[in-house]
C-alpha cells in the first residue's frame, strides 16, 4: 500500500502544505511591502498588520503605516490574487480544451476587454459615468458570449472553441486598433497601451475586496470540479462515458474562468504569461491530477505575481515597468530552467 493512499496521513500532508503555502505567500507579500523608494523592515509591516487587527499596539512611524496600508499592502495582495486567478484559469483552460497552449485569454477575454476599455476612454461611451474597468468588463463578457455562440455553445468540441476564440480575439483586437488609430491622440494611445500591458498602480482596498472574493469563490468552485477535470483527460466523450455531465461542466468552468479573468483584466489589464506558464510549471512539480494541481497553481501564481510586481518596481530605478513585460522577462528564464531540469529528470 502506498503511503499517500492513507486518508489520515493525506489530510495531515494537505494541512501542512496549505499552511506552508499561506506562510510563503504572506512572506512574499511582506517582503514586497518592504521594497520601494521607502524601504520598510518586515517587522514593521508585521506590526502594522497586527496593530490594525487589534492584536498589538506597537508604536510605528505614521508615514510607514500610511505607505503600508494605503499603498503597498493592498497592491501586493491584489497582485497575489490576480496571479492566483490567472494561473488557475489557465490550468482549467488547458485541461478543458486539452491544449497545452491554452491560457485565460484564449476565449477572447483580453481582446474584448481592450475594446471595451478604448470604447470608454477614447470614444467616450458612457459619457464619463462608466469607468474604464466597467467598460473592459463588459467588453470581456461580450467577447466571451461571442465565442460561446460561435463554438456552438457546449456541443462544439475543444478545437472549435479554440478557433472561435482566435476569431473573436482577432476581431476585437482589430476593433481596438481601429478605434485607437482613427480616434485616439498619441497620449490616449499610450495610455491604452500601458493599460493593456498591465499595471497594479492605483489598486487599493476596494479592488482587493472585489478580486479576493471573486478569486476565492472561483477557486473553491473549481476545486469541486477537480475530479471532473481529471475525467476530461481523454476527451469529452471519454468524460461522458465516465459519467461526467460534460455540457454542464464546460458551461460552469468556462463561466468561472471568464468571470475571474474578466475581473482581473478589467482591474489591472491583460497580464500575459502567468496563465500560460505557471500551470505547466506546477504540473511539472505536483503532476496533472487536479485536486493537487489547482491549489498548486493558485499558490505558485500568487507568489510569482507578487515577485513580478516587485521586479516591475525595482528593475528600472525611478520607473515602474508594465507588469506584463516583467512577467515574460522574468518568467521565461525561470520557466526554461524548470523545462530543462524536468526534461532530464523524466
Amino acid at each position, binding site marked *: 500500500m502506498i503511503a499517500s*493512499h492513507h486518508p489520515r496521513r493525506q489530510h495531515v500532508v494537505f494541512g501542512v502544505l496549505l499552511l506552508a503555502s499561506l506562510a510563503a505567500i504572506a512572506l512574499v507579500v511582506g517582503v514586497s511591502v518592504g521594497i520601494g523608494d521607502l524601504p520598510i523592515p518586515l517587522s514593521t509591516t508585521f506590526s502594522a498588520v497586527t496593530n490594525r487587527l487589534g492584536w498589538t499596539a506597537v508604536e510605528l512611524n505614521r508615514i510607514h503605516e500610511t505607505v503600508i496600508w494605503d499603498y503597498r499592502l493592498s497592491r501586493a495582495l491584489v497582485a497575489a490574487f490576480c496571479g492566483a486567478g490567472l494561473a488557475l484559469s489557465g490550468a482549467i483552460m488547458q485541461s478543458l480544451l486539452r491544449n*497545452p497552449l491554452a491560457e485565460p485569454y484564449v476565449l477572447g477575454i483580453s481582446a474584448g476587454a481592450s475594446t471595451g476599455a478604448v470604447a470608454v476612454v477614447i470614444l467616450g461611451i458612457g459619457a464619463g459615468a462608466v469607468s474604464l474597468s466597467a467598460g473592459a468588463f463588459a467588453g470581456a463578457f461580450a467577447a466571451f458570449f461571442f465565442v460561446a455562440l460561435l463554438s456552438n455553445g457546449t456541443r462544439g468540441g475543444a478545437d472549435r472553441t479554440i478557433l472561435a476564440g482566435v476569431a473573436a480575439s482577432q476581431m476585437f483586437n482589430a476593433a481596438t486598433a481601429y478605434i485607437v488609430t482613427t480616434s485616439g491622440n498619441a497620449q490616449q494611445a499610450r495610455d491604452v497601451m500601458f493599460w493593456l500591458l498591465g499595471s497594479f498602480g492605483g489598486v487599493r482596498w476596494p479592488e482587493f475586496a472585489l478580486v479576493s472574493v471573486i478569486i476565492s469563490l472561483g477557486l473553491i468552485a473549481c476545486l469541486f470540479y477537480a475530479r471532473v477535470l*481529471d475525467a476530461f483527460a*481523454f476527451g469529452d466523450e471519454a468524460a*461522458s462515458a465516465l*459519467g*461526467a455531465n460534460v455540457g454542464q461542466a464546460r458551461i460552469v468552468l468556462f463561466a468561472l474562468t471568464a468571470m475571474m479573468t474578466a475581473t482581473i483584466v478589467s482591474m489591472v489589464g491583460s497580464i500575459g504569461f502567468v496563465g500560460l506558464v505557471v500551470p505547466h510549471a506546477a504540473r511539472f512539480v505536483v*503532476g496533472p*491530477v487536479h485536486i493537487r494541481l489547482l491549489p498548486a497553481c493558485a499558490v505558485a501564481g500568487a507568489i510569482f505575481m507578487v515577485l513580478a510586481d516587485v521586479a516591475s518596481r525595482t528593475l528600472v530605478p525611478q520607473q515602474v515597468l508594465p507588469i506584463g513585460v516583467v512577467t515574460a522577462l522574468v518568467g521565461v528564464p525561470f520557466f526554461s530552467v524548470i523545462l530543462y531540469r524536468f526534461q532530464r529528470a523524466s
Partner: protein
Amino acid sequence: MSIEVHDIVWKIGKKTIIDGISFEAPKGKMLGLLGPNGSGKTSLLRLIAGLKRPHSGKVTLDAQDIGTIGRRSVARRMAFVEQHATTNANLRVVDVVKLGRFPHRSIFSGWTPADEEAVEDALDRAGILEKRNDRWQSLSGGEKQRAHIARALAQSPSELILDEPTNHLDIQHQIGLMRLVSGLPITSIIALHDLNHAAMFCDRLIVLQKGRIVACGAPHEVLTEHLLKEVFSVEARVESSAYHARPHIQYLR
C-alpha cells in the same frame, strides 16, 4: 436481457450510418461485433453506450431507455473502451485507472477501501500492476490499451463495451485480453477485426455491413465461407478447430 437495441437509425448529415438495427445482448455473454471498415461498428457502440442519441429507435438497459438514465448511473454499470483514446496529460497508470471510480464517488466522498480494491484488482487483471507508477507518455501502445481496459474494469461494470481493444496488442496480449473479457461474468459487446479470435472467444456474433445487420448467431452459424466472400470479399475455408471446436478460418491466397 441487459442491453436491447430497438430499430435504431443514426445519421451524420444526410448520410445514414446506422440503418435500422435491432438486437439483444444476452446477459453475461460476450457478443462480438464484426464488419468491414466503415460498416458502422464504432457508431453502433457509441449509440449503445448512450454517447450519441439515435435519430429513431432506442437502446434500453434492463428495459429502461438509456436516454432517460443519468450519465453517472449509466457509467456505474457500463464501461466503454474507445479506440485511440489518448491524452497529453502525463498521468500515471494508476491515475488513469482511478478515473474508473469517478462515477462511484460523489464530490465529497473520499477515497474508500472499496475504491482501492477495485483499482488494484483492475490493475492485476489487466496485467499492469508493475506499471502502476509509469507515466502515460512512456507507455507502449499495448500498455496504453491495457491501462484503458483496467480503467474500464475499475468501473466495476455489469456491461462492458469495447471498440477494437486488441489493436496495438501483441499476440500474447490479444489472446490474454480475449480470455480476460470472455472470462468476466458480465455482458460484453466487443468490436473486432480478427475473425478467428471472434470465433474462439465470443458466444454470439453480429456482422454489420453498411449500417445493417447481415448475420447474427453463434460463431459456427455466422462465419460461413459464403458470408466471408459476400461481406469481407475474401476467399476462405472454414473448418471446425480440432483444438477448441470453434470455427477456424483459413484465408486463401
